[in-house]
């Protein structure tokens, strides 16, 4: 139902939670459940490596080349003991099994870092949140208003959790939102949840596009005077 016109003057990119904790097959605590279904886990790892990372790199390149803002989100507790998180999250977030201790990757810990292949460059905003959705646990709305961003391209992990919550709330708050499906990944074996998010999002909240579709549409947009001025700086 939503039909979005892309306004490049207000366009920003949000890369959600592509960190060691959530997106690296040898670091995420989900690796401890690999044996349950090695094929599904390895398919997830390949999706990150072969699809999410290259597509995110293409998006980053476009936004950097056109001097449009990029925001990175990171998920994790702000305090080492996670007391800033709600109790169920503190207890259960990414906890792989009943016999494993609660998983912690607070700000500053190695697993909290963004994957180097798509890491932020100096001058790009990194926002830490202790929730799934950025609007529930960070000041992102304030930053977006300050940056003058109304049209948001969103990608990252996990499709049906942090990407879904952030994209829904952004659209519900009035932003025009495009979710880039092939620059997102669910968690291993969660194909149905990934699909449900994309379907519901496209129906009620915003646009769902592939990286190729988006880049092609963006390259067809006539350069505005405001953008030309930015580029001329």
């Amino acid at each position, binding site marked *: *139902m*939503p*039909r*979005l016109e892309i*306004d490049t003057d*207000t366009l920003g990119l949000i890369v959600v939670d592509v960190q060691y904790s959530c997106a690296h097959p040898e670091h995420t605590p989900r690796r401890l*459940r690999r044996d*349950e279904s090695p094929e599904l886990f390895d398919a997830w790892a390949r999706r990150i490596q072969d699809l999410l990372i290259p597509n995110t790199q293409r998006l980053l390149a476009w936004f950097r080349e056109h001097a449009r803002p990029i925001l990175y989100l990171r998920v994790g507790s702000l305090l080492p003991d996670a007391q800033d998180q*709600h*109790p*169920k*999250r503190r*207890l*259960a977030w990414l*906890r*792989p*099994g*009943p016999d*494993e201790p609660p998983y912690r990757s607070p700000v500053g810990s190695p697993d909290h870092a963004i994957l180097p292949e798509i890491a932020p460059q100096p001058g790009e905003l990194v926002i830490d949140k202790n*929730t*799934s*959705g950025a*609007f*529930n*646990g960070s000041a992102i709305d304030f930053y977006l208003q300050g940056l003058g961003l*109304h*049209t948001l391209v969103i990608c990252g992990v996990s499709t*049906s*959790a942090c990407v*879904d*919550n952030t994209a*829904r*709330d952004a659209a*519900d*708050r*009035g*932003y*025009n939102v495009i979710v880039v499906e092939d620059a997102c990944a669910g968690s291993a074996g*969660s194909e*149905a*949840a990934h699909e*449900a*998010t994309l*379907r*519901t999002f496209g*129906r*009620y909240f*915003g646009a769902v596009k592939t990286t190729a579709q988006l880049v092609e549409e963006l390259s067809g947009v006539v350069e505005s005077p405001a953008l030309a001025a930015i580029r001329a700086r």
Partner: protein
Amino acid sequence: MRGKIAWQPARPGRFTIAEWEIEGRATALLLLDLQIAHVDPTRGVGPIFHERFPTLAAYYYARLRDPVLPTVLELQSFFQQHELPIIHARSALALPDGADLAAWSWRRRQLRESAAGIPLLLPPGAPERELWPALEPRPDELVLDKPTLSPFNGTALDQYLRNMGVENLVIAGLLTNAAVETTARDAGDRGYNAMVVEDACAALSAEDHAAGTSFASWYVVKTTSELIDQLSPLVDGV
């Protein structure tokens, strides 16, 4: 009183929160978008649905008749009997032309373009924006107007809940995978013990309904009878 209620269904090999301790008296019922426009098959979206999407209309209004609307009244009556807070959040614009929506949002453009089309965003004065009459909210039931799907995005609900001492939020209404799911995601993410009442919600298809109840993120899904059975021991004694 405080006590444990069943929380997540067990998943073999996974860490699950099987039970969760709550204060039963800190429970509120949040009913979403149960308005004439969305409930009465002869008004609001009804005639357009019947004319343009007959299969959808047949499914949706049948589901409202059974089980959703009777179940909603059962929930409301349970919360009234136990003197627990009830909040109705309804879709409603504050200004006739939708100027209270973000100027750049596709919803505002849709409103302009669909002036003679599907009346989705109900302006002031539209009789269809009133609550479904059977709800008859008592004076102590809070009625919120929201220009958004989730009242966490378009009202001060979070602050009201904190002031009212609400920790547990029971969520029902329309549509399962739109306002209900978005609100439940926000409530759970913000730390409320969020419970969606599956048989008191409807979507536009069985597939959409399943999408809204199958992939819960920090909220849980219960039936009305499960919810009432589990809450009953914890809500007596004002």
